[in-house]
């Protein structure tokens, strides 16, 4: 599904990714853990095509295609989805309007028919209640006046509607209490499938109790420095990132 080779990326003069290698096969859930500033969020932005980042070396292949050659919207249409750590508020654009515009833009890019209004409404009604998304939240501006937890749930709703091949979850647990975390994790787990891969970026092991990964990677100074099974997360919870920090110093 995803194959990253020797990826180097910078923002301004600041190089953040320094030769990152990562392979995620179809249907697997990989977690990336690491201390603050290790480049986790940068990786998520580079994969989803945020314009501020410049890739200086390396390659990213997504289902055999050169992901880095695509604009952000083309990547989305190809099946890449980033659940933002801090979802953006867009006053004046109703959440429903936004969801529908996104679905139709992706369909159009793939040469598919637009979704009809009744089908769209049916789909939203089927998916929103499980994530605790009310009619009011659908009518309001995108993320406007949403609590932290509501914003994260709205991200997962978008993921459920857009049915991406690769879900990148950037610190989806940040700012969530345990109940909200369970709702979000349940939503994510419902989307696990042999054809869908996930990259779960997190600072804490807690999220991985609920979204159990196949592989855990440790990221440090812009590279993957260690990979292992889900038990690696527990080990990190015990020992912290100190060993890597010392390495840094």
């Amino acid at each position, binding site marked *: 599904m995803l194959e990253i080779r020797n990826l180097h990326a910078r923002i301004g003069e600041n190089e953040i990714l320094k030769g990152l290698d990562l392979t995620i096969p179809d249907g697997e859930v990989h977690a990336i853990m690491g201390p603050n500033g290790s480049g986790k969020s940068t990786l998520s932005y580079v994969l*989803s*095509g*945020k*314009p501020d980042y410049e890739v200086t070396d390396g390659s990213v292949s997504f289902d055999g295609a050169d992901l880095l050659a695509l*604009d*952000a*919207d083309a*990547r*989305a*249409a190809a099946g890449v*989805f*980033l659940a*933002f750590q801090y*979802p*953006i508020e*867009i*006053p*004046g*654009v109703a959440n429903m*309007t*936004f969801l529908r*515009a*996104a*679905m139709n*833009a*992706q369909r159009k*890019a793939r040469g598919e028919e637009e979704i009809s209004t009744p089908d769209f409404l049916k789909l939203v009604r089927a998916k929103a209640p499980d994530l605790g998304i009310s009619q009011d939240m659908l009518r309001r*501006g995108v993320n406007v006046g949403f609590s932290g937890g509501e914003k994260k749930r709205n991200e997962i709703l*978008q993921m459920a509607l*857009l049915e991406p091949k690769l879900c990148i979850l950037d610190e989806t647990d940040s700012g969530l209490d345990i109940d909200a975390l369970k709702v979000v994790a349940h939503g994510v787990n419902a989307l696990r499938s042999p054809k869908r891969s996930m990259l779960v970026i997190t600072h804490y092991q807690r999220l991985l109790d609920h979204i159990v990964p196949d592989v855990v990677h440790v990221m440090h100074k812009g590279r993957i420095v260690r990979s292992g099974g889900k038990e690696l997360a527990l080990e990190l919870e015990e020992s912290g990132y100190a060993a890597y920090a010392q390495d840094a110093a």
Partner: protein
Amino acid sequence: MTINVRPARTAAEEAIAAALEASITAEAGQGRIPEVRRAARDAFLSHGLPSRRVEEWKYTDLRAAVRDFPNCAPAPGAMEEAEAAPLVPSLPNAGRILFVNGVLSRAGSDFAALSEGVTALPLDAAIAAGDPLADRINALSPSRYDGPLALNTGFLGEGVALRVDAGVKAARPVHIAHAFPGVEAVAGFTRTVVVVGAGAEVTLVETFAGRDGVAYQSNHAVELVVGDGAIVNLVRIQEEGDAAFHFGTLMLELGREAKLNLFALAQGAALARYNVYGRFEGTGAHAGIRGATLARGRQHSDTTLVIDHAVAGGESRELFKTVLADESHGVFQGKIVVRRAAQKTDGRMMSQSLLLSDRAEMDNKPELEIFADDVQCGHGATAGALDRSMLFYLRSRGLPEKEAEMLLIQAFLGEAVEYVEDADLRDLLIERISGWLEKRAV
């Protein structure tokens, strides 16, 4: 020390002066009209077209911009009326008054078919009949010289006089449509006088459109008296041809607890200026004055407001949104005057602009002149580009760049459009704005 040196007249000023003289000589009008016209002519002869040396025209220099003056058009024939039709937005529920090239089209107007309690007369007929509406002509003109308005008064003749009887809730909007379909440039001047009786309610729609590439001059003034407790909704859609000059003036008087809800959309003309003079004459009146301006290419679009709170307890809300692409130039000038007697006035004015290009320019000039001591007045202005993080968020969900931009621009303008209470008119505005945005996106 004031030195009043008039620079030599420009070619355009010479042409205008000659045309004014000829027009007044040919047919000065009846009653007090010749006197009103001659006074306006004299004012023009001594002041001319305003240049940037005049404070109110600092950003919109007509002396430099207006290079010539085309002839006024004759009454429209069947061909002109047929050409005008596509330039008139369809408002199925409205009674329509149509002007083609600045001249009343009797065939295209529904004088007989307006709502009950609403009377419309051709301006010349109102004057000839000695209708009281004719006495209102030029009654609300500001004391300070206003070039385009002086020309509108100097050429006075075409127009419509409207009366809404006290207590009448007009069932249908009145649509005053202006079309300039000709391939030949003309100058058109119309005057609309509207008197809305106490407790009455009416919706007025003004639309302006014309042929692209023709440098016609479109100059229209409205004098609107909103009686005690009356409610007027006024929607203005300015979509003049891309080489046109557009000058619009609204002179407004609000009675006690009267209410005006104005929305002005401006997206046409090479150079446009909309000038609103609002005066609170009765206590407890409310004016909501809002608008959206969209400009691209080298378009210049100016909105200038002078809101005069003469009496206590008035409330005014101004919100103008401007979207500027390419090398276009937007101007917003808003002046709120609160006189000594106008205690408890509550005025809030905001101008927000979105610059889609770094060559676009927006000039904001808010002014407060407050002589009373117990008032709440505020103003603000913002200018900026589209929010990059919002754009990325939309694009990360699959929206192409232009579509994401459009959505954000519509949202930006939507905050002003939502104040239009009539759902059909709101939809019409959204449709016109979308049309502009789609053209730009191509």
